[in-house]
């Protein structure tokens, strides 16, 4: 058992924190919100140059062979600064499905530009009726003329800048995974603005024709679940970074804000609540460590460990952010102060890939089923 970072991991962490400190002040971030697709194309190029986009890919595929720990290091640093660039969507979701699908032709075609920062990706899985269920898929894929024809609708697809969509679609009894270029004539995109500043989209597939090789896996549910699970861990790392920022910012604020003749941080009732914010953050970080080990070790309890993490992060992430707002008083409810933006991001993380209740039930099913 060893929870410490290797020298390379520590260096990665340092360089990420340096980037966030210099490029992601609230003012700098506010500007990016108004950029096309609500993030910085320049930053993305920087990520590519620094090699960050290649992290989780094997050396044969042009990556540096990093694992879940490296992804978590990236996302925790991004969480502290509310970084907007779509690392999870492009690298961890789209990229990992491509890399692990066993479809060499698609991997060859798309991974190089992705790692070079020239291609944005997205995972289109959610449908109006599915809520958080990956398998409840009504988009249909039919074989036609040696290729495929896709019809259906996907909603709330994260990363509106995506050039390549990974689409899940029912074919017979199975859920297949398909690589669908966003400029395919059968694809209609509608951009949505989200409360955390990001751009998502609804995707309509109308007789969307694909060649045979664009089918990544005909029975892809297991791969889809695995990639989503690992991305979920990375999202939770982002949440832990955000929670860490929030409790610290609240403690600092409480040392300067005066009421009734003293800094509010001197009031015992508020002190105890800030201790609880700190404790909840450390609890989430502990389950993050557990899930990271579990994925790295390919543990038998990986499903339980990931769902426990997501459930706790969903609940306590919002709780810590709500407390931060409350203890900032009037300032906490203004758009101007960044506390509210952290709350919004933590709320969105809670509802991405299933909320706290969904994951608690998944944990129960994995652990207590007869």
């Amino acid at each position, binding site marked *: 058992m060893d929870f410490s970072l290797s020298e390379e991991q520590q260096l990665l962490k340092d360089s990420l924190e340096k980037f966030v400190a210099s490029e992601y002040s609230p003012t700098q971030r506010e500007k990016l919100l108004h950029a096309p697709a609500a993030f910085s194309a320049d930053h993305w190029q920087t990520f590519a140059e620094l090699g960050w986009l290649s992290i989780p890919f094997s050396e044969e595929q042009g990556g540096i062979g990093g694992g879940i720990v490296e992804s978590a290091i990236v996302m925790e640093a991004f969480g502290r600064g509310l970084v907007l660039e779509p690392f999870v969507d492009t690298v961890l979701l789209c990229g990992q499905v491509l890399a692990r699908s066993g479809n060499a032709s698609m991997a060859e075609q798309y991974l190089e530009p992705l790692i070079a920062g020239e291609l944005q990706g997205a995972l289109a899985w959610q449908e*109006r009726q599915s809520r*958080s269920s990956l398998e409840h898929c009504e988009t249909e894929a039919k074989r036609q003329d040696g290729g495929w024809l896709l019809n259906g609708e996907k909603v*709330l697809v994260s990363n509106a800048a995506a050039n390549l969509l990974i689409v899940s679609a029912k074919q017979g009894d199975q859920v297949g995974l398909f690589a669908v270029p966003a400029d395919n004539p059968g694809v209609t995109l509608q951009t*949505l*603005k989200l409360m955390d500043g990001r751009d998502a989209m*609804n995707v309509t597939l109308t007789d969307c024709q694909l060649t045979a090789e664009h089918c990544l896996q005909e029975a892809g549910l297991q791969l889809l679940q695995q990639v989503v699970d690992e991305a979920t861990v990375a999202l939770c790392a982002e949440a832990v970074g955000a929670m860490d920022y929030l409790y610290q910012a609240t403690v600092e604020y409480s040392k300067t804000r005066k009421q009734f003749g003293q800094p509010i941080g001197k009031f015992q009732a508020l002190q105890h609540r800030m201790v609880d914010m700190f404790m909840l953050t450390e609890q989430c970080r502990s389950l993050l460590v557990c899930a990271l080990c579990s994925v790295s070790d390919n543990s038998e309890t990986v499903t339980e460990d990931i769902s426990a993490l997501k459930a706790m992060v969903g609940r306590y992430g919002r709780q810590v952010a*709500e407390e931060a707002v409350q203890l900032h008083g009037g300032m906490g409810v203004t*758009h101007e102060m960044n506390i509210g933006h952290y709350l919004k991001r933590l709320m969105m993380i809670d509802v991405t890939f299933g*909320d706290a*209740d969904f994951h608690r039930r998944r944990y129960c099913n994995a652990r207590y089923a007869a």
Partner: protein
Amino acid sequence: MHAKFTPEERVFQQEVREFMTNEFTDELAARIRHPDSFREAMIEWQKKLDAKGWAANGWPVEHGGCGWSATKRSIYSNEMALAGAPDVVPMGIKMVGPVLYSFGNEEQKARFLPATKASDIWWCQGYSEPGAGSDLAALQTRAVRDGDDYIINGTKIWTTYAQYADWMFCLVRTNTEGKPQAGISFLLIDMTSPGITVSPIISIDDEHHLNEVSFSDVRVPVANRIGEENEGWTYAKALLTYERTALSGVGYCKRTLQRIRDYAANERQGGGRLIDDPDFQARLADVEMEVTSLEYLELRVLNAVDKGGAPGMESSLLKLKGSDCQQAVQTLYWNLAAAYGGVLPGDDHQNVSGHAYGDQARREYMFGRATTIYGGSNEVQRNIIAKFGLGL
């Protein structure tokens, strides 16, 4: 002990229900929802209530109140909430009104009470300051006597709807010596007076409800002072009690829970209906029980008032529990909307998200964050209850 209505109360309930159905039209509701028409539409609605004699129902009968029993007041606000109709904007009728009829002189009463009741004056509240939030008595806005006027300098913050207001009721410092509570006076300020600047504050729901209001050598006639100089804290404290009673929001909670149940019956999750999911049911039930307990807590307070008891510490309890309940309901609403709640409205919002209520769920959750902060934060309410309720 019973909760049944008398035949007369049943007739009254029917009357309120019909009034709400007929007068609170969809068209009016739509105009109230839109920021551009909000002020005008709210005044129109309040004038309808006033024409019916209900706008200032809680005032003494001699000033146009209704003299309703606790039961009738509860029927009224229940029916209003179930119709989805908003109550009057509280600053005029619920906040400054009671101060006016309790502490104002005859001239002030004549000048302001009828106009307030008729919604001809839109009021805002000038209490909080950048350095004085929950610690209200720390306020610094100065009023210096100059002949028949005060000259006001300073800044008020978190002023709800100041952008719409004709008048502000305001606490100012007229004496800097002694305890901070001494030396505060209660003034009525014409918002068109030269030297007043209203600057918007955008909230985390991306809306403009709040403002900063600054005063630079603003002249206010001494005649616009309520009661005695330096005694304003007494009047404000009385008002705070009224404000807290007005803040339990049980009607809002019940209406929103009704919506949540309806939406959850139509929301699909995997194969089934969300309302049948045991985890969602358990969460919904927890909140519903809290709201029912809030409802009966409020009814108990109203009942006690009917029997001659004054709302004291119980009003803090209602504010505390009421704001908790409102946030619990909003969180549940957000849980229901899930990811759809995160979509900001576009040109074609309903089609886009497929969930018309997602936008509403997010806004209410965000707006509701302030519920535990304003009107005396919940931390201050706990201090008050500890001191005056438990004698600690």
